[in-house]
């Protein structure tokens, strides 16, 4: 309960400082930006999967909705980019509200319905019949707001907020209540926890960070197609990174992103299918031998992992 300041100082602050200073030292800014985006998404998955047990298999739906929220604001209303990013987050929250009935489903049903929802949003946005609004499958080009430096620092800010949210969940009665609901909804409800409110708040918070990340991504790349920003890889990568590190912890998803996305960039680009093979085997091995993530190596020895 009283560890929040410690977590903020020893986990969040170093992370933000490192990613704020790295662009001055390291030349590949796109790579750094992708790291920050995946840190946000992995922590977003952590909020909903780690703390409530709902597996968001279509998490990219929020990301893409945020990107298109940004694009539509910039294309049609010519709003400044930071405001459009906020609108992107708002669009994702609206989509989350629209999808709250899905929370009635449990287990695999939720995961599959969420996947279907994200694909439905993709096909909706990419529909040639809506070309006047979303430019359909032909993609959008937002050269007017193109400013990678600002977008990068905006991403670092959102990452700080997201990690801060996870620190809060880890150290607050609210987070404890969420975990109680995850473990046994009926008992938690008997103990006076408002299950529905708890779940909806976590769900919308997780949608919000993905939407903000999507808006910033649109700001950074400025030219994209529906298939780019709704690519299932975002959901899968975020889920696997979070799981690999260990969910319901602050450090787990961070470690997962740094290690796995690092490996991805070392071997991924030259031979994609070999990478896919290694990646698939890694996922299978992870589930079979280390289902609670890397942090379980430490917790098994009795060490406390924040």
């Amino acid at each position: 309960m009283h560890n929040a300041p410690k977590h903020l100082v020893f986990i969040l602050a170093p992370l933000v400082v490192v990613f704020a200073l790295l662009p001055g030292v390291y030349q590949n800014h796109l790579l750094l930006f992708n790291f920050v985006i995946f840190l946000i998404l992995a922590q977003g998955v952590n909020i909903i999967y780690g703390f409530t047990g709902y597996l968001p298999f279509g998490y990219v739906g929020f990301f893409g909705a945020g990107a298109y929220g940004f694009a539509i604001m910039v294309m049609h209303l010519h709003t400044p980019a930071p405001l459009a990013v906020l609108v992107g987050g708002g669009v994702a929250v609206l989509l989350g509200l629209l999808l709250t009935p899905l929370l009635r489903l449990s287990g695999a049903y939720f995961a599959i319905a969420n996947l279907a929802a994200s694909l439905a949003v993709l096909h909706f946005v990419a529909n040639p019949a809506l070309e006047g609004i979303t430019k359909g499958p032909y993609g959008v080009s937002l050269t007017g707001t193109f400013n990678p430096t600002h977008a990068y620092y905006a991403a670092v800010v959102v990452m700080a907020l997201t990690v801060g949210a996870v620190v809060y969940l880890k150290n607050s009665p609210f987070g404890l209540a969420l975990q109680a609901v995850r473990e046994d909804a009926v008992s938690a409800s008997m103990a006076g926890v408002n299950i529905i409110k708890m779940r909806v708040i976590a769900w919308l918070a997780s949608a919000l960070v993905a939407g903000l990340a999507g808006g910033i991504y649109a700001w950074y790349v400025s030219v994209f197609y529906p298939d780019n920003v709704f690519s299932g890889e975002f959901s899968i990568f975020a889920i696997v990174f979070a799981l690999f590190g260990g969910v319901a912890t602050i450090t787990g998803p961070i470690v997962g992103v740094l290690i796995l996305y690092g490996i991805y960039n070392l071997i991924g680009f030259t031979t994609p299918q070999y990478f896919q093979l290694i990646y698939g085997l890694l996922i299978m091995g992870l589930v079979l031998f280390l289902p609670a993530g890397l942090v379980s190596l430490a917790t098994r020895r009795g060490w406390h992992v924040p």
Partner: protein
Amino acid sequence: MTYALVAGVLFGLYFSLVGIGLNLVFGVMRIVNLAHGDILMLGAFIALGVVGIAGIDPLFAVPLAFVVFVLAGVLLYWVLVPRLQGSANPEMLSIILFFGLSQVIEAVTTIFAGTSERSIQSRLLGTVFSTIKVKLFGGKAGGAGPIQIFGQGFPAPWVIAAITSLVAIGLVYLYLYHTRLGTLTRAVMSRRDEALATGIDVDRVSAAAFGIGLGIAAVAGVFAPFMFGSVTPAFGADATVTSFAIVVLGSLGNPLGTALGGVVYGLCYMLVQTYLSSWADLLPYVLLIVILLLRPSGLLGRRVRVA
């Protein structure tokens, strides 16, 4: 209109075949086989192999694909599932595990076969029938032309796939309701714990169901090049979502439910494609969400699963 309806039923029967294996695996083991579509894709590649290497009717790939994948399924079951069932949350972790498997299958297929689209000339399917006809009754040899139903012509592969699907669904029904192993399978489906307590060898029953599920998926895959035009190694993911829509539309653990779900899906698909073609892509997903929210137990189901 008649064309859309008949084509819908033909496609629907085929879609039932696509979904039924997934239904069996989920119903018996509570495992989400996200690699289902990739097994379909491998089945299609067996058909391509049979045509490419032996140069005979792809129908011969049906028994081959079935036997190969029943064996592969039983083997995979023993490698993966008992370990998975021992973990904290098998249903969730199975999604991720089988996603990993689907990545491995897709990657290996891409390494060996490349990413180009493959298709088979549709007149090759069913040549065995015309050859027999020529042997028995004489007459002119040649590819099967369109088949007439209600005065409309339909490609012969559609009809052959639909008939094969009917036969396969009938066989699954016979297996589940008229064999000893099938009765045990249904016992495991309804209450896994009680089945275990009664002394049923749950692992053996599940392994059989897993093998049969994969075998049927591969059989469905043999027809995929004809029904969808062509296949690529990446075809699996879409096929998985479609299969889920069909299975949920019917109901879990009931092969007749999946048959109904498939036909309903096929009819919707054809009608939307005829009248609102630009929105046809949305259909499987929207249908899946609506059904999950309104009737999570499916059209014929009784059990409701909500949080």
